[in-house]
């Protein structure tokens, strides 16, 4: 217990008596933590954008004129039983006509053509949404092979398929690049922090040699440096967390007006524990790991 108290005390003195090196190490770690936190936030913002675009995509099943409302309702019930299907919405012929008229009432050419036809040219439809756009193909396949196929006039999946595939490819590209970026930048950042800590410990090489010669055990030598690493990492985490909170708090109204529905402050507060955990793992982890590796080199005497 006394030894532990002494090690804590030595660690604190190492930290406080060399403010230059400590500040430099904290500064580098704040940059590293900020970079990794930014990557995490970017990844989640990108996911949000992809999801909100995917949510806007749906597939419509148009039914022949002879299909009754009961039959369409039966199709809707069958579709709802498929776990991937999240939403089915029935649009009757009348509703489709009303929707069209409302949308194009300012366009005399379209409205004139509609009047000239004299009948409602629209089909009743079911709009369906699934969890992920890749699941539309199997749902459409199910319908085409089902007993309801004779009722179906058209499914617009094949028209929308290229757009969906494009979206899918963009989202997978974003995910892929996000992961590659995170790994590359994360590794670079950690290496920078690692060398900074090793550099500052090089000054302690002679001191460690003296400690060994007067009979200090590895634990007694390493301990204070590890505590120093924890203090440096902890301070960097605190600064980075406050910095991010301040920036996000200040910019959140602008982000919300730019990307409606994206509440970055809400995301930051609701994920604060995981963000803090990432920051602590990076800050304290790099601080402690780099210190112990660097010292191990000098402990061979």
């Amino acid at each position, binding site marked *: 217990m006394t030894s532990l108290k002494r090690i804590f005390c030595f660690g604190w003195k190492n930290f406080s008596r060399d403010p230059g090196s400590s500040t430099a190490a904290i500064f580098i770690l704040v940059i590293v933590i900020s970079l990794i936190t930014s990557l995490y936030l970017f990844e989640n913002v990108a996911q949000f954008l992809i999801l909100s675009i995917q949510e806007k995509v749906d597939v419509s099943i148009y039914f022949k004129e002879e299909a009754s409302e009961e039959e369409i309702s039966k199709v809707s019930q069958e579709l709802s039983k498929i776990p991937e299907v999240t939403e089915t919405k029935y649009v009757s012929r009348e509703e489709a006509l009303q929707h069209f008229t409302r949308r194009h009432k300012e366009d005399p050419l379209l409205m004139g053509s509609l009047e000239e036809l004299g009948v409602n040219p629209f089909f009743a439809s079911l709009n369906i949404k699934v969890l992920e756009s890749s699941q539309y193909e199997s749902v459409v396949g199910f319908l085409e092979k089902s007993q309801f196929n004779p009722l179906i006039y058209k499914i617009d999946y094949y028209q929308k398929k290229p757009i969906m595939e494009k979206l899918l490819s963009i989202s997978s590209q974003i995910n892929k690049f996000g992961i590659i970026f995170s790994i590359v930048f994360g590794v670079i950042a950690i290496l920078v922090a690692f060398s900074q800590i090793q550099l500052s410990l090089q000054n302690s090489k002679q001191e460690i040699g003296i*400690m060994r*010669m007067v*009979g200090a*055990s590895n634990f007694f030598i390493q301990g204070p440096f590890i505590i120093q690493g924890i203090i440096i990492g902890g301070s960097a985490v605190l600064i980075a967390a406050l910095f991010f909170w301040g920036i996000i708090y200040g910019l959140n109204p602008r982000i919300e007006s730019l990307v409606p529905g994206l509440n970055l402050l809400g995301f930051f507060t609701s994920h604060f524990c995981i963000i803090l955990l990432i920051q602590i793992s990076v800050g304290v982890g790099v601080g402690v790991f780099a210190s112990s590796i660097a010292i191990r080199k000098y402990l061979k005497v």
Partner: protein
Amino acid sequence: MISFQNLTKIYPPNIVALDNVSFDVKEKEFVCIVGRSGAGKTTLLKLLLAIEKPTRGEIFFGDEELFKIDHEDLSKFRRKIGVIFQDYKLLPSKTVYENVAYVMELMGRSDREISREIPQILKIVELEDRSHNFPAQLSGGEQQRAAVARAIAHRPQVILADEPTGNLDPYNTQDLIRLLKKINKLGTTIILATHDKEIIDSLKERVITLERGRLIRDEKEGRFII
């Protein structure tokens, strides 16, 4: 107490620092090791501290065979020895008080004991007013006295002094030698490596002379003859 047996140390490619050196040091003895620069004095002390390993031979400390002690236990062994270096080797980031306290803390001494004993130790080396200064704020003589305070603080069985007067003026040199004699009288074995003729001749203690790594003379009340 300490037995050096057939010690040979050859540095690559083929530099012989010690050549088949054997002698014993008894408890409470004051032994001077003399020789020109490069004679092997420092190598001998480095071997005793187990900082280096010999090419051949063995050192026994009591019943312990030094080079068979594993790396982790070496720290415990080194606590039996107090070391004074020519370049002081004080911990630069610690004050005089903390430098002396450090070895006592390693021994697991309580804070109360440490705070009671350090002022007495610093009084012996006349550094009581400098206890809160860092080594860089002290003169050469003061740093050497701080190194002596650190070497005696944990009451080691042996004190190794490697050219301790090398950076001191004649006044400080005499003070330091008087201090070492006093410590020896109190029962601590001293091994002093030096090439200072005046010190050796005034001490009238056992003198072991090394030349090109070989032990050429071992006299009970020796003089500096090279």
